[in-house]
């Protein structure tokens, strides 16, 4: 065991609060404030996973969201989460985690064996093979590939926790709670702006949490951080959200941020009343990006061995978590900053050798400090190759040429239990780039960075601009924030905080540490750890002409992982640039896309789940339907009674009973879901003439008419009955699913095309409850409820409507029929809907009144050949196709919507599909809705399909089956025999009229 706990004054763990946890079933202990990663390291765990492609042993390499290797499965059962980065999991008591890779086990891994053949598995190797020996072999190969891929396991139980969304509208959103973000928030807060600061970590402070020696305004940086937090806390206009990651930035500064509300708590002590995670949707006038920077490693041979880390990680584990990552540490750097890590580790008792790739090393004061702490300095060297297999055992050094990145000579072989490297910082530019922003290559910072001046609505502050020295990062933050405040017309309160000024020596421009061999000949030097992309792989991609950086990414999978290349991208771009012989700036970056770090699906969904996934709309009669045992059908968002089974009835039994009761006596149906639109104004009639295919000029008050609505393409889009209330006033009904669409349709035509027409549309769908009383006894039922309307056949005719009272309630009664029976639709204020329904039921009792649902409604209307838009039509049917030419007023003066389309060459073809009725030869056979129709019994593919069955039922009234269908040239094929085919079964049927019951209309006119 090489890593060990030390005490550091800077540490953020509470050594008084030990926590027990298990990893791969082994009991371990950590402390409050630990991450799973820091606790694992402290427990001596090095091997944490196997690599994706080669099964190489891997350990923890980073300390935050950049971690590519330590993907673990947290917890089991319903609480399990795959692929969490151990570096971002806060330790809690009782936590259990397992590795996600290694088969059959982490220590004995078959893929690892296959890794022996790694040299034959370059990038894209699967594109080049698995194509033979026979085609059929590929599924087997694929199965193996799939089994070998993937990290954690998807949960298989429903999520026991919940999520919600919270919307914010703020003046300023600050992303990042490091020194710079805190200062920006302080200035915004002091200026009185409504400010929100988010930081992904459990504590604010950013790098200051790791850098024990930093000072601001002459005091320890963390003291300054705590003062800032206290001040922000005291300002009423500032909110600080911890454990909250801004993961996407969208148009007009809409930022999505994920707050982990309870993930840091033991499962047993989570509050079920609080969400597990919360998605914040923040609309900010101005965003300050202070997301900082992430240290990248250098690229060198076997740089993926467990025990290899970034220098920043080593420094963080030490200073923040009180864990020294090794007793015998090698640290390779090309910059000054990493000396601090070496110094701190040495101070804490580790043996540290600092390998500076620069011949002259760091600024004197840093070299002195390091030496004083006991660090051994080796200048002008680099690590060619790491030794050790499942753990670091040492490294082979080479002497570097001081000017070119080549090897000048051999170096010593050193033993070590831990190897750190620093390849400089990479600015966290992601959010800036989510909506078109592009970073630029700043050579002096050796990083892609964002501009100091930000852009419209966005300021950039601190390390994100490539400022690695605290003093200059703060100075830039101060300037950028002041400029932002000026934009708000506010002034800046406070002087720029001062970081210590240091002398710094120049960085060495180095990404890939040379090993003296041609690329691809030496040990694998990894760039992207999660996807096993080595420096040689990038060269190979370029050699094979995958030269665009996007091709390099896609061919090698560079940056494709769950870390999205936070450690690897810049090294990858630099190596590609070298292979291409181009400057890095000309290579550019791949595209930064959300999410900055992964986001739980559940959090994205929020409360749009289960019973609130999508509205369920109910009518006022819902309780009545439930009481009578209705089963429901979803129609659009509405829940409509489907049928009302009694006892053990099947649907067909129930529907037969409902149909017969209605045809023979009386049935009742809830028609409230139909869309209703009040159309009123002097030009209402003209408007209807334009919007409907049929004519409205002569419809008198007191009368109703069925109307067909076409789209401009001439196809039927909706239908319904419209009643004339007064000369300038109509009550329009639409299909249940079409209500909103039709209202918007009317509004758009009126507003955009005919604003001169004086007419207005008001939705009254919810206002009216509609009870349809249907059947020969419907008049008798109504007579019991209604004294002020003359219900006699002569005075209240089919397609009339009357106003009066029903059961003492003001009502509009329409004598319309969707069943071909004598029928009335009672419309009342929906608050009376339940009452009226129950009154009708009571009044109908003596006639055996029978409630029925949509299924019976469908049978009754099909018996009459009435269409249902959306079932008998599919957006390709004209009124003529539906044999409804009678509903087209070709002589109307205004060219109504869709009219012109009806005369196009294709639309007037006589062999279009037209609506017909079908009688099966065997009356017991109920055709399948959706069955295809053939002219001959030969169904050999490709068979010439003639049309299909749109509606098909057993008609209890007729004692046989009936069907509606659309058939090529159907209007001329009456009497033909056709062959109806569905799922291998064929039934002959005869083409007949689609009106099966009461062709003369006697019943509805009764």
């Amino acid at each position, binding site marked *: 065991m090489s890593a060990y706990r030390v005490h550091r004054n800077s540490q953020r763990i509470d050594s008084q609060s030990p926590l027990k946890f298990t990893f791969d079933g082994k009991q371990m202990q950590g402390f409050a404030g630990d991450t799973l990663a820091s606790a694992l390291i402290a427990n001596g765990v090095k091997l944490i996973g196997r690599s994706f492609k080669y099964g190489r042993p891997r350990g923890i390499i980073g300390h935050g969201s950049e971690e590519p290797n330590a993907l673990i499965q947290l917890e089991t059962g319903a609480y399990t989460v795959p692929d969490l980065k151990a570096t971002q999991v806060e330790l809690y008591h009782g936590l259990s985690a397992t590795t996600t890779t290694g088969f059959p086990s982490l220590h004995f891994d078959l893929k690892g064996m296959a890794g022996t053949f790694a040299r034959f598995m370059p990038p894209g190797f699967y594109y080049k093979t698995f194509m033979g020996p026979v085609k059929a072999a590929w599924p087997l190969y694929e199965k193996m590939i799939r089994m070998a891929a993937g990290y954690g396991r998807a949960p298989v139980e429903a999520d026991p926790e919940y999520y919600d969304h919270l919307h914010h509208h703020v003046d300023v959103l600050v992303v990042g709670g490091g020194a710079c973000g805190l200062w920006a928030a302080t200035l915004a807060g002091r200026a009185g702006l409504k400010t929100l600061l988010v930081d992904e970590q459990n504590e604010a402070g950013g790098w200051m949490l790791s850098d024990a020696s930093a000072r601001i305004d002459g005091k320890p940086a963390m003291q300054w951080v705590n003062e800032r937090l206290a001040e922000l806390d005291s300002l009423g206009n500032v909110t600080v959200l911890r454990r909250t990651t801004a993961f996407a930035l969208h148009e007009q500064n809409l930022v999505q941020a994920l707050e982990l509300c309870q993930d840091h708590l033991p499962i047993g002590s989570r509050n079920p009343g609080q969400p597990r995670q919360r998605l914040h949707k923040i*609309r900010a006038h101005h965003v300050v990006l202070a997301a900082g920077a992430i240290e990248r490693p250098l690229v060198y041979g076997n740089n993926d061995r467990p025990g290899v880390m970034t220098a920043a990680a080593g420094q963080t584990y030490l200073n923040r978590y009180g864990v020294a990552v090794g007793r015998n540490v090698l640290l390779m750097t090309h910059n000054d900053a990493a000396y601090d890590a070496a110094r701190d580790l040495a101070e804490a008792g580790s043996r540290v050798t600092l390998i500076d790739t620069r011949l002259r090393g760091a600024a004197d004061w840093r070299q002195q400090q390091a030496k004083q702490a006991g660090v051994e300095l080796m200048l002008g060297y680099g690590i060619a190759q790491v030794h050790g297999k499942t753990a670091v055992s040492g490294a082979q050094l080479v002497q570097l040429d001081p000017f070119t990145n080549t090897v000048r000579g051999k170096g010593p072989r050193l033993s070590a239990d831990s190897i750190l490297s620093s390849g400089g910082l990479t600015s966290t530019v992601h959010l800036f780039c989510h909506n078109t922003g592009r970073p630029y290559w700043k050579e002096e910072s050796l990083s892609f960075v964002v501009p100091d001046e930000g852009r419209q609505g966005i300021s950039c502050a601190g390390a994100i601009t490539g400022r690695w020295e605290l003093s200059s990062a703060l100075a830039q933050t101060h300037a950028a924030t002041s400029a932002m405040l000026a934009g708000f017309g506010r002034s800046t309160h406070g002087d720029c905080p001062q970081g210590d000024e240091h002398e710094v020596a120049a960085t060495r421009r180095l990404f890939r540490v040379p090993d003296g061999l041609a690329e691809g000949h030496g040990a694998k030097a990894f760039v992207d750890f999660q996807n096993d992309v080595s420096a040689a792989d990038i060269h190979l991609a370029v050699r094979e002409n995958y030269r665009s950086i996007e091709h390099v990414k896609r061919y090698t999978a560079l940056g494709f992982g769950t870390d999205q290349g936070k450690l690897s991208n810049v090294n990858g771009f630099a190596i590609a640039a070298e292979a291409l012989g181009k400057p890095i700036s000309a290579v550019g970056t791949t595209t930064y896309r959300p999410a900055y770090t992964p986001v739980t699906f559940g959090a994205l969904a929020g409360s749009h789940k289960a019973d609130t996934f999508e509205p369920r709309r109910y009518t006022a009669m819902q309780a009545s339907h439930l009481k009578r045992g209705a089963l429901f059908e979803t129609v659009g968002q509405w829940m409509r009674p489907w049928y009302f089974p009694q006892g053990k009835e099947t649907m067909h039994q129930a529907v037969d009973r409902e149909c017969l009761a209605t045809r023979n006596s009386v049935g009742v149906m809830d028609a409230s879901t139909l869309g209703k639109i009040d159309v009123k104004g002097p030009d209402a009639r003209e408007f209807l003439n334009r919007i409907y295919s049929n004519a409205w000029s002569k419809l008198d008050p007191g009368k109703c008419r069925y109307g067909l609505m076409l789209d401009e393409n001439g196809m039927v889009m909706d239908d319904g009955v419209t009643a004339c209330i007064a000369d300038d006033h109509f009550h329009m009904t639409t299909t249940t699913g079409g209500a909103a669409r039709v209202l918007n349709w009317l*509004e*758009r035509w009126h507003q955009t095309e005919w*604003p001169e027409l004086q007419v207005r549309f008001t939705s009254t769908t919810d206002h009216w409850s509609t009870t349809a009383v249907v059947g020969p006894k419907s008049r008798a039922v109504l007579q019991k409820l209604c004294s002020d309307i003359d219900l006699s056949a002569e005075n209240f005719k089919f397609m009339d409507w009357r106003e009066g009272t029903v059961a003492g309630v003001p009502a509009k009664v329409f004598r319309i029929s969707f069943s071909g029976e004598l029928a009335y639709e009672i419309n009342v204020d929906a608050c009376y809907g339940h009452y009226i329904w129950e009154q009708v039921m009571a009044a109908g009792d003596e006639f055996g009144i029978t409630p029925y649902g949509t299924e019976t409604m469908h049978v009754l209307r099909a018996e009459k050949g009435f269409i249902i838009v959306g079932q008998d039509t599919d957006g390709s049917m004209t009124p003529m196709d539906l044999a409804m030419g009678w509903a087209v007023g070709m002589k109307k003066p205004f060219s109504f919507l869709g009219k*012109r389309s009806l005369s*196009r*060459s294709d639309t007037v073809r006589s062999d279009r599909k037209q609506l017909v009725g079908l009688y099966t030869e065997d009356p017991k056979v109920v055709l399948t809705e959706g069955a295809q129709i053939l002219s001959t019994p030969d169904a050999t593919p490709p068979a010439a399909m003639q049309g299909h069955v749109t509606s098909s039922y057993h008609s209890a009234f007729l004692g046989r089956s009936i069907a509606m269908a659309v058939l090529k040239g159907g209007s001329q094929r009456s009497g033909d025999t056709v062959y109806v085919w569905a799922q291998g079964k064929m039934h002959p049927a005869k083409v007949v009229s689609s009106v099966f019951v009461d062709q003369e209309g006697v019943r509805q006119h009764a």
Partner: protein
Amino acid sequence: MFQLHCPHCGATREEEEFSYAGEAYIARPANPEEASDAEWGDYLFMRKNTRGWFWEQWQHTAGCRKVFVVKRHTASYQIAGSWTLAEGKAHYLKESEA
């Protein structure tokens, strides 16, 4: 996700309140019966589909239900402004001429 300004409500609201309503100012032929099949097809289906500054209609479906026009850049997603149908038309015509 856009914030759109509804000139009727005089308020800037989130995209979720609105429905996109297509290219603005497509003129319906005054005499459809006189249009050829090709002209009618053009009116029905052919669209500018501009990459760049584009005049489009939105309807404030969750608010005032009014249709209005927005001038939006379809590649950068910048929004230059929004107007009532009547007000916008003058700007639109001026730009179309230019």
